Protein backbone atom coordinates (compact mmCIF):
# COMPACT_ATOMS: atom_id res chain seq x y z
CA UNK A 1 0.00 0.00 0.00
CA UNK A 2 1.37 3.45 -0.83
CA UNK A 3 2.40 5.49 2.19
CA UNK A 4 -0.12 8.21 3.01
CA UNK A 5 0.78 11.81 2.26
CA UNK A 6 1.49 13.77 5.47
CA UNK A 7 -1.18 16.28 6.49
CA UNK A 8 -1.45 19.34 8.69
CA UNK A 9 -4.52 19.56 10.93
CA UNK A 10 -6.55 22.67 11.54
CA UNK A 11 -8.85 23.16 14.51
CA UNK A 12 -11.87 25.44 14.20
CA UNK A 13 -11.31 26.89 17.67
CA UNK A 14 -14.71 28.54 17.74
CA UNK A 15 -16.42 25.13 17.88
CA UNK A 16 -13.75 23.22 19.82
CA UNK A 17 -15.02 22.25 23.29
CA UNK A 18 -11.57 21.17 24.54
CA UNK A 19 -12.81 17.65 25.19
CA UNK A 20 -9.52 15.95 24.38
CA UNK A 21 -11.13 13.08 22.46
CA UNK A 22 -8.86 13.72 19.44
CA UNK A 23 -5.76 13.26 21.61
CA UNK A 24 -7.24 10.17 23.25
CA UNK A 25 -7.76 8.38 19.94
CA UNK A 26 -4.56 9.59 18.25
CA UNK A 27 -1.98 6.84 17.54
CA UNK A 28 0.92 9.32 17.28
CA UNK A 29 3.83 9.19 19.69
CA UNK A 30 3.89 11.30 22.87
CA UNK A 31 3.87 15.04 22.32
CA UNK A 32 1.63 15.27 19.25
CA UNK A 33 -0.56 17.76 21.12
CA UNK A 34 -1.38 21.46 21.21
CA UNK A 35 -1.45 23.54 24.39
CA UNK A 36 -5.27 23.42 24.24
CA UNK A 37 -5.93 19.70 24.76
CA UNK A 38 -6.11 18.97 21.04
CA UNK A 39 -3.89 17.17 18.55
CA UNK A 40 -0.92 19.16 17.22
CA UNK A 41 -1.71 21.82 14.67
CA UNK A 42 1.72 22.94 13.49
CA UNK A 43 3.37 19.57 13.01
CA UNK A 44 2.82 17.40 9.92
CA UNK A 45 1.13 14.08 10.67
CA UNK A 46 2.60 11.26 8.61
CA UNK A 47 0.11 8.66 9.81
CA UNK A 48 -2.86 10.62 8.39
CA UNK A 49 -5.41 8.09 9.68
CA UNK A 50 -7.91 10.92 10.36
CA UNK A 51 -9.47 9.21 13.39
CA UNK A 52 -9.14 12.53 15.23
CA UNK A 53 -11.52 14.07 12.69
CA UNK A 54 -13.93 11.15 13.13
CA UNK A 55 -14.04 11.22 16.94
CA UNK A 56 -14.55 15.00 17.25
CA UNK A 57 -18.08 15.44 18.70
CA UNK A 58 -18.49 18.77 16.89
CA UNK A 59 -16.52 17.95 13.68
CA UNK A 60 -14.17 20.89 14.03
CA UNK A 61 -10.94 19.24 12.80
CA UNK A 62 -9.94 19.51 9.14
CA UNK A 63 -6.68 18.93 7.24
CA UNK A 64 -4.62 19.97 4.25
CA UNK A 65 -1.64 18.24 2.63
CA UNK A 66 1.55 19.15 4.48
CA UNK A 67 3.87 21.42 2.50
CA UNK A 68 6.53 19.32 0.76
CA UNK A 69 10.06 19.83 2.12
CA UNK A 70 12.04 22.13 -0.22
Amino acid at each position, binding site marked *: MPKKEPVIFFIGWNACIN*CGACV*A*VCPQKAGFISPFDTIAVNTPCDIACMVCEDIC*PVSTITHEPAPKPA
Partner: protein
Amino acid sequence: MSTSQYDIVVIGSGPAGATTARVAAEQGLRALLVDKRQELGAPVQCSGAVSRHALEEVGIQPADEFIHEAIYGFGIYDQDGSETIIDYRQLKPDEYGQGANKKPLGYVVDRRRFDRCLMTMAERAGVEVWLKTEGLGYVVNSSGSCTVQLRHFNKEISVEAKVLVGADGLQSQVGKWAGLHTHIKLTELASCLQFVVDQVETDGLLEIITGHEWAPGGYAWVFPKGYGYAEIGLGVIRTMTKENAQWHLDQFIQHSFFKTRFKNSRILEIQGGGVPLAAPLRTQYSDNLILVGDAARHVNPITGGGIHTALSGGRIAGQFLAKLIREGVAPTKENLAGYQEQWLEELGNKMWQLYKEKCQIFKTKNLKRRDAMLYQTMSSYFSPHSEYKKI
Protein backbone atom coordinates in the same frame (compact mmCIF):
# COMPACT_ATOMS: atom_id res chain seq x y z
CA MET B 1 17.66 23.49 37.48
CA SER B 2 16.99 22.03 40.90
CA THR B 3 16.31 18.48 42.01
CA SER B 4 14.03 17.45 44.84
CA GLN B 5 13.38 13.93 46.03
CA TYR B 6 10.01 12.28 46.47
CA ASP B 7 8.76 8.76 46.99
CA ILE B 8 6.12 9.28 44.31
CA VAL B 9 5.32 11.93 41.73
CA VAL B 10 1.76 11.88 40.39
CA ILE B 11 0.98 13.60 37.08
CA GLY B 12 -2.67 14.63 36.87
CA SER B 13 -4.89 15.63 39.78
CA GLY B 14 -8.22 14.05 38.89
CA PRO B 15 -10.00 11.54 41.13
CA ALA B 16 -7.43 8.79 40.47
CA GLY B 17 -4.28 10.90 40.86
CA ALA B 18 -5.41 12.85 43.91
CA THR B 19 -6.57 9.65 45.64
CA THR B 20 -3.34 7.79 44.86
CA ALA B 21 -1.30 10.70 46.28
CA ARG B 22 -3.51 11.13 49.35
CA VAL B 23 -3.59 7.44 50.30
CA ALA B 24 0.19 7.18 49.81
CA ALA B 25 0.80 10.28 51.95
CA GLU B 26 -1.56 9.04 54.67
CA GLN B 27 0.67 5.99 54.88
CA GLY B 28 3.81 8.04 55.23
CA LEU B 29 5.09 8.53 51.68
CA ARG B 30 6.51 11.82 50.43
CA ALA B 31 4.31 12.66 47.45
CA LEU B 32 4.24 15.38 44.80
CA LEU B 33 1.00 15.86 42.84
CA VAL B 34 1.10 18.05 39.73
CA ASP B 35 -1.51 19.20 37.23
CA LYS B 36 -1.10 21.31 34.12
CA ARG B 37 -4.34 23.19 34.66
CA GLN B 38 -4.95 26.37 36.59
CA GLU B 39 -8.27 25.03 37.89
CA LEU B 40 -9.04 21.35 38.21
CA GLY B 41 -11.96 19.60 36.57
CA ALA B 42 -12.34 22.14 33.76
CA PRO B 43 -13.21 22.04 30.93
CA VAL B 44 -15.70 19.46 32.18
CA GLN B 45 -15.49 16.18 30.24
CA CYS B 46 -17.79 14.11 32.43
CA SER B 47 -21.43 13.75 33.53
CA GLY B 48 -20.41 13.52 37.19
CA ALA B 49 -22.42 10.52 38.38
CA VAL B 50 -20.91 8.56 41.27
CA SER B 51 -22.31 6.19 43.89
CA ARG B 52 -22.28 7.08 47.58
CA HIS B 53 -20.55 3.78 48.24
CA ALA B 54 -17.69 4.77 45.92
CA LEU B 55 -17.04 7.93 47.93
CA GLU B 56 -17.30 6.28 51.33
CA GLU B 57 -15.00 3.45 50.30
CA VAL B 58 -12.14 5.92 49.92
CA GLY B 59 -13.01 8.12 52.89
CA ILE B 60 -14.66 11.01 51.04
CA GLN B 61 -17.45 12.62 53.03
CA PRO B 62 -20.33 13.59 50.70
CA ALA B 63 -20.41 17.40 50.95
CA ASP B 64 -22.43 20.32 49.61
CA GLU B 65 -19.15 21.71 48.30
CA PHE B 66 -19.29 19.37 45.30
CA ILE B 67 -22.74 17.72 45.18
CA HIS B 68 -25.09 19.01 42.52
CA GLU B 69 -27.90 16.60 43.30
CA ALA B 70 -28.62 13.37 45.17
CA ILE B 71 -29.62 10.27 43.17
CA TYR B 72 -32.02 7.55 44.29
CA GLY B 73 -32.17 5.20 41.32
CA PHE B 74 -32.30 4.68 37.59
CA GLY B 75 -34.69 4.87 34.67
CA ILE B 76 -33.73 2.72 31.69
CA TYR B 77 -35.53 3.28 28.39
CA ASP B 78 -35.63 1.39 25.14
CA GLN B 79 -35.64 3.14 21.77
CA ASP B 80 -39.41 3.71 21.82
CA GLY B 81 -39.66 4.87 25.41
CA SER B 82 -40.65 1.70 27.27
CA GLU B 83 -39.09 1.98 30.68
CA THR B 84 -37.66 0.03 33.57
CA ILE B 85 -37.64 2.17 36.72
CA ILE B 86 -35.33 1.08 39.52
CA ASP B 87 -36.12 3.54 42.29
CA TYR B 88 -34.49 2.61 45.58
CA ARG B 89 -36.89 4.97 47.40
CA GLN B 90 -39.55 2.39 46.55
CA LEU B 91 -37.44 -0.76 46.60
CA LYS B 92 -35.89 -0.07 50.02
CA PRO B 93 -37.93 2.78 51.52
CA ASP B 94 -36.43 2.36 54.99
CA GLU B 95 -32.92 2.90 53.71
CA TYR B 96 -33.10 5.30 50.74
CA GLY B 97 -34.78 8.68 50.58
CA GLN B 98 -34.60 12.21 51.88
CA GLY B 99 -35.93 11.69 55.41
CA ALA B 100 -33.99 11.33 58.64
CA ASN B 101 -31.70 8.28 58.75
CA LYS B 102 -32.15 7.76 55.02
CA LYS B 103 -29.48 8.11 52.38
CA PRO B 104 -29.10 8.70 48.67
CA LEU B 105 -27.81 5.96 46.39
CA GLY B 106 -25.37 8.34 44.76
CA TYR B 107 -24.77 11.82 43.49
CA VAL B 108 -24.18 13.95 40.44
CA VAL B 109 -21.12 16.00 41.34
CA ASP B 110 -19.61 19.19 39.99
CA ARG B 111 -16.27 17.97 38.68
CA ARG B 112 -14.64 21.37 39.20
CA ARG B 113 -15.51 21.40 42.89
CA PHE B 114 -15.11 17.65 43.32
CA ASP B 115 -11.61 17.51 41.87
CA ARG B 116 -10.59 20.55 43.91
CA CYS B 117 -11.93 18.92 47.07
CA LEU B 118 -9.96 15.72 46.38
CA MET B 119 -6.82 17.78 45.79
CA THR B 120 -7.41 19.62 49.06
CA MET B 121 -7.77 16.31 50.90
CA ALA B 122 -4.45 15.20 49.42
CA GLU B 123 -2.83 18.49 50.35
CA ARG B 124 -4.09 18.22 53.94
CA ALA B 125 -2.73 14.68 54.12
CA GLY B 126 0.72 16.09 53.41
CA VAL B 127 0.96 15.90 49.62
CA GLU B 128 2.83 18.73 47.91
CA VAL B 129 0.63 20.08 45.09
CA TRP B 130 1.71 22.18 42.11
CA LEU B 131 -0.76 23.55 39.58
CA LYS B 132 0.29 24.94 36.16
CA THR B 133 2.79 22.10 36.00
CA GLU B 134 3.01 19.79 33.01
CA GLY B 135 5.01 16.64 32.66
CA LEU B 136 7.65 16.62 29.92
CA GLY B 137 9.19 13.20 30.31
CA TYR B 138 11.01 10.83 32.62
CA VAL B 139 14.17 8.76 32.67
CA VAL B 140 14.98 5.70 34.73
CA ASN B 141 18.21 6.16 36.71
CA SER B 142 20.85 3.53 37.36
CA SER B 143 20.35 4.14 41.10
CA GLY B 144 16.86 2.59 40.83
CA SER B 145 14.91 5.85 41.01
CA CYS B 146 13.66 7.99 38.12
CA THR B 147 13.97 11.64 37.17
CA VAL B 148 10.77 13.38 36.11
CA GLN B 149 11.01 16.53 34.00
CA LEU B 150 8.31 19.09 34.66
CA ARG B 151 7.49 22.59 33.46
CA HIS B 152 6.07 24.84 36.18
CA PHE B 153 5.06 28.39 35.15
CA ASN B 154 7.47 28.19 32.22
CA LYS B 155 10.35 27.01 34.40
CA GLU B 156 11.82 23.58 33.75
CA ILE B 157 12.31 21.54 36.90
CA SER B 158 13.58 18.00 37.46
CA VAL B 159 12.47 15.98 40.45
CA GLU B 160 13.57 12.55 41.54
CA ALA B 161 11.05 9.89 42.49
CA LYS B 162 10.97 6.21 43.23
CA VAL B 163 7.74 5.84 41.26
CA LEU B 164 6.05 8.06 38.68
CA VAL B 165 2.26 7.69 38.63
CA GLY B 166 0.55 8.57 35.33
CA ALA B 167 -2.92 9.86 36.18
CA ASP B 168 -3.14 12.07 33.14
CA GLY B 169 -6.40 10.82 31.74
CA LEU B 170 -7.44 9.28 28.50
CA GLN B 171 -5.03 11.56 26.65
CA SER B 172 -2.19 10.07 28.74
CA GLN B 173 1.24 11.08 27.58
CA VAL B 174 2.91 9.35 30.54
CA GLY B 175 1.82 5.94 29.26
CA LYS B 176 3.29 6.79 25.85
CA TRP B 177 6.59 7.85 27.45
CA ALA B 178 6.88 4.36 28.91
CA GLY B 179 6.03 2.75 25.59
CA LEU B 180 2.90 1.12 26.98
CA HIS B 181 0.20 0.14 24.50
CA THR B 182 -2.23 2.88 25.41
CA HIS B 183 -3.71 3.41 21.98
CA ILE B 184 -7.48 3.07 21.88
CA LYS B 185 -9.34 2.14 18.72
CA LEU B 186 -12.00 4.37 17.17
CA THR B 187 -14.42 1.46 17.58
CA GLU B 188 -13.98 1.53 21.36
CA LEU B 189 -13.97 5.23 22.15
CA ALA B 190 -17.40 6.85 22.42
CA SER B 191 -17.62 10.39 21.11
CA CYS B 192 -19.70 12.21 23.72
CA LEU B 193 -21.47 15.53 23.95
CA GLN B 194 -23.72 16.87 26.68
CA PHE B 195 -25.68 20.02 27.42
CA VAL B 196 -26.44 21.31 30.88
CA VAL B 197 -29.95 22.66 30.42
CA ASP B 198 -32.67 24.59 32.19
CA GLN B 199 -36.39 23.77 31.92
CA VAL B 200 -36.13 19.98 31.90
CA GLU B 201 -37.68 18.24 34.89
CA THR B 202 -35.98 15.34 36.63
CA ASP B 203 -36.83 13.21 39.66
CA GLY B 204 -33.67 12.01 41.38
CA LEU B 205 -33.04 9.26 38.83
CA LEU B 206 -30.21 8.70 36.37
CA GLU B 207 -32.05 8.12 33.10
CA ILE B 208 -30.43 6.04 30.40
CA ILE B 209 -31.88 5.83 26.91
CA THR B 210 -30.73 2.93 24.76
CA GLY B 211 -31.30 2.28 21.07
CA HIS B 212 -29.31 2.54 17.87
CA GLU B 213 -31.61 5.26 16.55
CA TRP B 214 -30.56 7.72 19.28
CA ALA B 215 -27.01 6.71 20.15
CA PRO B 216 -25.40 4.10 17.86
CA GLY B 217 -22.80 2.15 19.85
CA GLY B 218 -23.55 3.96 23.10
CA TYR B 219 -26.54 5.46 24.88
CA ALA B 220 -28.16 8.80 25.71
CA TRP B 221 -28.67 10.12 29.25
CA VAL B 222 -30.69 12.62 31.24
CA PHE B 223 -29.23 13.32 34.68
CA PRO B 224 -30.43 15.73 37.37
CA LYS B 225 -27.92 18.54 37.84
CA GLY B 226 -29.26 20.48 40.83
CA TYR B 227 -30.90 23.93 40.99
CA GLY B 228 -33.59 22.66 38.61
CA TYR B 229 -31.05 21.98 35.89
CA ALA B 230 -30.49 18.75 34.00
CA GLU B 231 -27.80 17.22 31.84
CA ILE B 232 -28.77 15.76 28.45
CA GLY B 233 -26.03 13.92 26.63
CA LEU B 234 -25.03 10.96 24.55
CA GLY B 235 -22.11 8.98 23.29
CA VAL B 236 -21.77 7.38 19.86
CA ILE B 237 -19.26 5.05 18.24
CA ARG B 238 -18.26 6.80 15.05
CA THR B 239 -17.71 3.63 13.05
CA MET B 240 -21.43 2.89 13.52
CA THR B 241 -22.77 6.21 12.22
CA LYS B 242 -22.06 8.77 9.52
CA GLU B 243 -23.06 11.65 11.80
CA ASN B 244 -21.24 13.23 14.74
CA ALA B 245 -22.34 13.33 18.38
CA GLN B 246 -23.70 16.86 17.98
CA TRP B 247 -26.04 15.78 15.19
CA HIS B 248 -27.26 12.81 17.24
CA LEU B 249 -27.82 14.97 20.33
CA ASP B 250 -29.90 17.42 18.31
CA GLN B 251 -31.94 14.50 16.90
CA PHE B 252 -32.46 13.07 20.36
CA ILE B 253 -33.63 16.39 21.78
CA GLN B 254 -35.91 17.26 18.88
CA HIS B 255 -37.28 13.92 17.75
CA SER B 256 -37.14 11.31 20.52
CA PHE B 257 -40.06 10.29 22.74
CA PHE B 258 -38.76 12.97 25.14
CA LYS B 259 -39.21 15.81 22.64
CA THR B 260 -42.15 17.31 24.55
CA ARG B 261 -40.22 17.12 27.80
CA PHE B 262 -37.24 18.87 26.16
CA LYS B 263 -39.37 21.43 24.28
CA ASN B 264 -38.42 24.41 26.43
CA SER B 265 -34.86 23.34 27.26
CA ARG B 266 -32.27 26.10 27.29
CA ILE B 267 -28.59 25.28 27.01
CA LEU B 268 -26.45 26.55 29.90
CA GLU B 269 -23.20 24.65 29.32
CA ILE B 270 -21.72 22.53 26.52
CA GLN B 271 -19.35 19.72 27.41
CA GLY B 272 -17.85 16.72 25.70
CA GLY B 273 -15.23 14.05 25.78
CA GLY B 274 -14.12 10.62 24.74
CA VAL B 275 -15.36 7.74 26.88
CA PRO B 276 -13.63 4.39 26.47
CA LEU B 277 -16.00 1.45 26.12
CA ALA B 278 -12.95 -0.77 26.09
CA ALA B 279 -10.99 -3.31 28.05
CA PRO B 280 -8.57 -2.10 30.74
CA LEU B 281 -4.97 -1.69 29.58
CA ARG B 282 -3.27 -5.06 29.49
CA THR B 283 -0.10 -3.61 30.99
CA GLN B 284 -0.44 -0.70 33.40
CA TYR B 285 3.14 -0.59 34.72
CA SER B 286 6.74 -0.28 33.67
CA ASP B 287 10.05 0.36 35.47
CA ASN B 288 9.42 3.07 38.10
CA LEU B 289 5.99 3.74 36.65
CA ILE B 290 2.33 2.86 37.01
CA LEU B 291 -0.86 4.21 35.43
CA VAL B 292 -4.16 4.86 37.23
CA GLY B 293 -7.65 6.07 36.29
CA ASP B 294 -8.56 6.84 32.69
CA ALA B 295 -4.86 6.61 31.76
CA ALA B 296 -5.01 2.90 32.67
CA ARG B 297 -8.50 2.76 31.15
CA HIS B 298 -10.08 2.01 34.50
CA VAL B 299 -13.51 2.74 33.07
CA ASN B 300 -16.64 0.63 33.18
CA PRO B 301 -17.04 -0.56 29.55
CA ILE B 302 -20.83 -0.90 29.81
CA THR B 303 -21.76 2.36 31.52
CA GLY B 304 -18.68 4.44 30.69
CA GLY B 305 -18.60 5.38 34.37
CA GLY B 306 -15.10 6.24 35.54
CA ILE B 307 -15.20 8.14 38.84
CA HIS B 308 -15.76 5.13 41.08
CA THR B 309 -13.17 3.08 39.25
CA ALA B 310 -10.69 5.98 39.41
CA LEU B 311 -11.17 6.40 43.17
CA SER B 312 -10.90 2.68 43.89
CA GLY B 313 -7.93 2.28 41.57
CA GLY B 314 -6.27 5.25 43.26
CA ARG B 315 -6.75 3.68 46.67
CA ILE B 316 -5.31 0.37 45.47
CA ALA B 317 -2.33 2.14 43.88
CA GLY B 318 -1.67 4.34 46.94
CA GLN B 319 -1.77 1.39 49.32
CA PHE B 320 0.37 -0.76 47.07
CA LEU B 321 3.05 1.90 46.59
CA ALA B 322 3.11 2.74 50.32
CA LYS B 323 3.78 -0.88 51.20
CA LEU B 324 6.34 -1.40 48.43
CA ILE B 325 8.34 1.71 49.30
CA ARG B 326 8.10 1.26 53.10
CA GLU B 327 9.48 -2.25 52.70
CA GLY B 328 12.31 -0.96 50.51
CA VAL B 329 11.36 -3.11 47.53
CA ALA B 330 12.91 -1.89 44.24
CA PRO B 331 10.22 -0.32 41.99
CA THR B 332 11.11 -2.41 38.95
CA LYS B 333 8.63 -3.53 36.33
CA GLU B 334 8.58 -7.00 37.88
CA ASN B 335 7.79 -5.69 41.35
CA LEU B 336 5.21 -3.14 40.18
CA ALA B 337 3.30 -5.91 38.37
CA GLY B 338 1.82 -6.64 41.80
CA TYR B 339 -0.17 -3.41 41.59
CA GLN B 340 -1.98 -4.62 38.51
CA GLU B 341 -2.54 -8.06 40.01
CA GLN B 342 -4.12 -6.52 43.06
CA TRP B 343 -6.23 -4.23 40.91
CA LEU B 344 -7.40 -7.14 38.75
CA GLU B 345 -8.39 -9.09 41.81
CA GLU B 346 -10.36 -6.25 43.38
CA LEU B 347 -11.88 -4.62 40.28
CA GLY B 348 -10.26 -5.45 36.98
CA ASN B 349 -11.43 -9.01 36.47
CA LYS B 350 -15.04 -7.86 36.72
CA MET B 351 -14.29 -5.08 34.24
CA TRP B 352 -12.94 -7.66 31.82
CA GLN B 353 -16.20 -9.62 32.20
CA LEU B 354 -18.17 -6.45 31.51
CA TYR B 355 -16.05 -5.83 28.44
CA LYS B 356 -16.87 -9.29 27.12
CA GLU B 357 -20.58 -8.66 27.71
CA LYS B 358 -20.32 -5.35 25.90
CA CYS B 359 -18.64 -7.05 22.93
CA GLN B 360 -21.38 -9.69 22.81
CA ILE B 361 -23.97 -6.95 22.50
CA PHE B 362 -22.28 -4.83 19.87
CA LYS B 363 -21.11 -7.67 17.64
CA THR B 364 -24.77 -8.65 17.19
CA LYS B 365 -25.56 -7.72 13.59
CA ASN B 366 -29.35 -7.63 13.88
CA LEU B 367 -30.10 -4.11 15.17
CA LYS B 368 -33.40 -4.98 16.79
CA ARG B 369 -31.80 -7.84 18.65
CA ARG B 370 -28.80 -5.68 19.61
CA ASP B 371 -31.05 -2.92 20.95
CA ALA B 372 -33.02 -5.45 22.99
CA MET B 373 -29.79 -6.89 24.42
CA LEU B 374 -28.47 -3.46 25.44
CA TYR B 375 -31.76 -2.49 27.06
CA GLN B 376 -31.88 -5.79 28.91
CA THR B 377 -28.25 -5.53 30.05
CA MET B 378 -28.63 -1.95 31.28
CA SER B 379 -31.85 -2.82 33.09
CA SER B 380 -30.32 -5.76 34.91
CA TYR B 381 -27.01 -3.95 35.48
CA PHE B 382 -28.65 -1.38 37.76
CA SER B 383 -31.02 -3.79 39.52
CA PRO B 384 -30.53 -4.44 43.23
CA HIS B 385 -29.50 -8.00 42.38
CA SER B 386 -26.77 -7.09 39.90
CA GLU B 387 -23.44 -8.78 40.51
CA TYR B 388 -21.75 -5.63 39.19
CA LYS B 389 -23.53 -3.28 41.57
CA LYS B 390 -20.30 -2.04 43.04
CA ILE B 391 -18.26 -1.55 39.89
